[in-house]
């Protein structure tokens, strides 16, 4: 537990004065993600500690460098968890990294995204000012919602120093069921399960099988097989022996997340058809009730971006063999969106010193 805010502030101030760009680093677990940049490092990993946690308030406040594992174990000791199930790559992810990357896990459509859980944060802007936005309470609409803007901004708008997030109780029981159903029909099945009041908290289709996780009270989970027998005789299903499938999915340890080929992350409407991008015998994993695909493809980046743009979604070249590749990482922004991004960047980081180029080459 260590408060390094003012050391970090001094470094940012100095960098602003000297116009030296900085790479913001926590646990370096996501260095493969986004555009590679090689600036002077601003290391947040010494800024650590859970500064406030009151289980009955359902909120936790921690400094950015706090290892995600520390937060999760503290919560688990109190029967609570992060609703967004963020990936913890190599066990090295930090709380600040979770927020800056904004990557949500398998439960995202059913529980919450990273940004949904954020109630407030303290940041360093590019001028080296320590600023607090939001708060520690569930509802707060004073001023613009800068805290949620920071989530997923990859540090380009500010160095997250500390944040408060909402947490949820760990469900009393869970079970996993595998359904023999095609990918295209699985969207409707997941919707149907939810509309029957079944407590779906994750879904994934790997090309062969749809797996669904149910999380609820003990009695409800114990009754699930009876309910499935009653209402879902039209599809072949089987209860899995345990729930061990989900952690490797969450932490991207399954086949299909490796960097031997380009691994694309496609965010779409659940009903969007991205099958034109699929390459036979290449991994294609569909999560989030159909709203998120991970796939390896022979299609060119331009083809992937065009396909997603036409569907109103967006693509990210998430992992790639050439880790130094600079281009075609994130979905190209429209000229107007690029203008908004550059103007917001200028508003928070006028000297352009915080992770410049990490997201797009233009800022």
């Amino acid at each position, binding site marked *: 537990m260590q408060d390094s805010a003012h050391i970090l502030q001094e470094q940012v101030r100095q960098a602003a004065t000297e116009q030296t760009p900085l790479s913001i680093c926590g646990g370096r677990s996501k260095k493969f993600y986004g555009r590679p940049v090689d600036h002077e490092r601003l290391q947040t990993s010494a800024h650590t500690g859970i500064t406030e946690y009151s289980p009955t308030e359902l909120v936790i406040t921690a400094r950015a460098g706090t290892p995600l594992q520390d937060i999760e174990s503290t919560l688990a000791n109190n029967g609570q968890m992060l609703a967004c199930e963020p990936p913890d790559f190599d066990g090295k992810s930090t709380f600040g990294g979770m927020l800056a990357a904004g990557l949500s896990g398998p439960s995202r459509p059913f529980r919450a995204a990273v940004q949904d859980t954020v109630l407030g944060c303290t940041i360093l802007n590019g001028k080296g000012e320590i600023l607090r936005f939001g708060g520690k309470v569930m509802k707060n609409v004073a001023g613009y919602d800068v805290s949620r803007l920071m989530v997923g901004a990859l540090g380009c708008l500010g160095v997250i120093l500390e944040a408060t997030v909402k947490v949820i109780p760990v469900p009393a029981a869970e079970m996993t069921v595998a359904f023999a159903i095609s990918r295209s029909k699985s969207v409707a099945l997941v919707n149907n399960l939810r509309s029957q009041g079944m407590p779906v908290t994750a879904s994934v289709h790997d090309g062969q099988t749809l797996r669904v996780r149910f999380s609820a009270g003990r009695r409800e989970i114990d009754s699930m097989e009876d309910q499935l027998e009653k209402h879902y005789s039209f599809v072949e299903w089987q209860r899995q022996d345990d729930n061990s499938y989900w952690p490797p999915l969450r932490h991207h340890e399954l086949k299909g997340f490796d960097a031997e080929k380009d691994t694309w992350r496609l965010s779409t409407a659940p009903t969007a058809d991205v099958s034109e991008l699929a390459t036979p015998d290449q991994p294609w994993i569909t999560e989030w009730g159909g709203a*998120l695909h991970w796939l390896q493809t022979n299609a060119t980046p331009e083809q992937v971006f065009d396909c997603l743009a036409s569907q109103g979604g967006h693509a990210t070249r998430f992992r790639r063999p050439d880790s130094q590749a600079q281009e075609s990482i994130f979905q190209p922004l429209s000229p107007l969106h690029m203008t908004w991004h550059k103007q917001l960047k200028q508003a928070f980081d006028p000297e352009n010193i915080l992770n410049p180029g990490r997201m797009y080459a233009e800022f």
Partner: protein
Amino acid sequence: MAEPVSLETLLPQLQGILEAQYILSTREQLKPFECDGLSVYRELPLVAVLPGTSEEVQAIIRLCHDQHIPLVTRGAGTGLSAGAKPHPQGVLLVLTRMNRILEIDTASLTAKVQPGVRNLAISEAAVAHGLFYAPDPSSQIACSIGGNIAENAGGVHCLKYGLTVHNIISLEGFTAAGEAITVGSAGLDSAGFNLQSLVIGSEGMLMVVTGITVKLLPVPQQTEVLLAAFDAIETAGQAVSNIIAAGIIPGGLEMMDNNAIRAAEDYAHAGYPRDAAAILLIEIDGSSINVEEQLQVTRQVLKQSGVTSLKVAADDAERALMWKGRKSAFPAVGRLSPDYYCMDGTIPRSKLAEVLNYIDSLSKEYGFPVANVFHAGDGNLHPLILFDANIPGQLEQVETMGGRILEKCITVGGTITGEHGVGLEKIRQMPLQFNDQEIEQFHRVKTALDPENVLNPGKNIPLLKHCQEYRALAADLVPNRLLSQAEPG
């Protein structure tokens, strides 16, 4: 800002954009639009326009942008912070005619709606498909979804289902310069910055929204409501913490104090115990088995927490009646007194008793009765201060008292506004929650997206010189920590 535009110059230009009947410019026509739900703040706009299409909206924004005319967007006018108060030299853009539900997509569990659609109308249309739109501010029969976006509206089910920001997929509309823009995507996140969260709750100051895709949820299989009475506020507050500590996340969790209970009971005959110091309304929803399981645990927790009486609604009618009492609490309290002033602070739940005791002491000091309704699940407190605006000086006294309540909210770690927004009403208290550098950062965000300051100018974010004046006035009332101009170091 350039010279104010004259009506004579503006009218012919507007008539080139939309039919004359949708352009209001006489005093009689404009009077209904002089205020939103906070009627102590009134102003007539130069002109009000009621466009029916996005194209008309775009042309109006361009006109205002090109001629530096302030543009205030208004939905149903139910806002409670004067966020939609017209600008005297400006155009009031009223979006109530854009009130169509364009699509309910049962495969994606979304609905596409126009901004003037009433909040409740979405759920009414979706229920045929077994779906509903979760955020439900108490004004939901009248308030528009566009206004909900502007204020990031909450409601009584936020603890479980979140605020407006948690239930929106994407927004279409126009920048301050009138360029078409979409924020969010068809998926659950979008490329680049999280612009959608920035726009939601920005009080119409960063863009004008003309199309909204909302998230729909399956209607819970079963819903039960418990009415629990307590002989002390503290005991009721502790019971709330105990329920959450038991791992229960109720769909709704509301508290009312004795003044609010009596007012609501006299008005709605909801079956509330008039002698209770506090009641909790606890709604548990989900699958039948889960609801029964949670109901059992909740009853047990309440008994251990010192509940004096406990009733579960027997049927849908009684459940609706129990909620009617709560949702009509504001008008019910309104019957007790010529005027009431509704506050909107949020506090950590654990500080509830401390804050209510403080409000009670202010009530005695100023001589104004206070009724308290409280979204206990999420810590959002609505003290209703009863007064008579016709008695000279009372409004000013009530505003001072209200300001002190908000200051207390801040000192216990809360916020000056949970769901009603800053608007004009709470702009003076902004410097309590934010220092000059933070306020300045807000201004830079505004300037980044609306450099000409066309959209709803003067709301939400105070000018720095006003912050300094306010701090000088408030210096005796609040701890120095809150008034620091900047962080040390």
